[in-house]
């Protein structure tokens, strides 16, 4: 473990958010599909959600006056780190069931790893999250591993 990761930061591994309940609407699927310039009609009609539709839904919505100077909402599942600039790192995602309008999903997020690394432009901290999504029948819909880079 690198010197940036203290025992206090490391103690965050295993912590989880309050689960988020998401009602999937056709309009939200259509908005996402148009914004990402999908070509497939089933996405543009909102019949089914594109694979990355749920990105960002694992975090609670925050009032504007609670956003930080970088515009980001304070993430209750992000420890106080010696580095502050947040970047997307990557995603690994497995799909088990299609997501369609009317689905009521439960999204659970937890921290599975925190480590640091020396990048070409300086030190980087990686926070790795596990995100699991189940439907109203408690069936697993999607399993995701997501990393955020703090520089």
């Amino acid at each position, binding site marked *: 473990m690198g010197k940036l990761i203290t025992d206090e930061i490391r103690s965050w591994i295993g912590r989880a958010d309050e689960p988020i309940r998401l009602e999937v609407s056709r309009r*939200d699927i259509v*908005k*996402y599909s*148009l*914004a*990402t*310039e*999908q*070509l*497939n009609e089933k996405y543009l009609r909102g019949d089914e959600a*594109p*694979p*990355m539709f749920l*990105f*960002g*839904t694992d975090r609670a*919505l925050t009032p504007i006056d609670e*956003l930080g100077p*970088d*515009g*980001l*909402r304070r993430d209750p599942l992000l420890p106080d780190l010696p580095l502050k*600039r*947040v*970047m*997307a*790192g*990557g*995603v*690994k*995602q*497995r*799909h088990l069931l299609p997501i369609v309008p009317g689905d009521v999903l439960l999204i659970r997020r937890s921290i599975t790893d925190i480590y640091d690394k020396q990048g070409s432009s300086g030190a980087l901290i990686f926070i790795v999250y596990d995100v699991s999504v189940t439907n109203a029948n408690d069936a697993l819909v999607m399993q995701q*591993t997501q990393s955020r*880079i703090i520089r």
Partner: protein
Amino acid sequence: MPNLKNLKVGDKLPERDHHPTNVSLFLYNAAIWNPHRIHYDERYTTEVEKHPGVVIDGPLQGDWLTQVVVNWLGDDGQLIEFEYSNRRASMLGETLTSGGTVTSIKGDTATLDIFIRNEAGDVVTPGTATVRIDA
């Protein structure tokens, strides 16, 4: 659309150019409720976070990677799993190209290398995908 009988390792998926704009990044970040200023506030992005320009979202590039796959599959298969890594930031004004290659075929399952490449030819977001192709 892939045909399992004719599919070969090394087959290329159709490439697509992406020309994100201020408007398309605004709509994307509104759709995912992402208020991070590096995606719309050029002055903040360059002066405070020291990026050379407004940053194209990493997950948006991830979405484009999935589109390479699902547009190729059409109604003839399913995307089972994928992963990608945002290796280098890309800025508004750049044209990015998505594409992929078949790397293995086993039964009805194929694996793919997928990529986002910048105008200099550098892969900024590499990834892989696993798909099931209908017989």
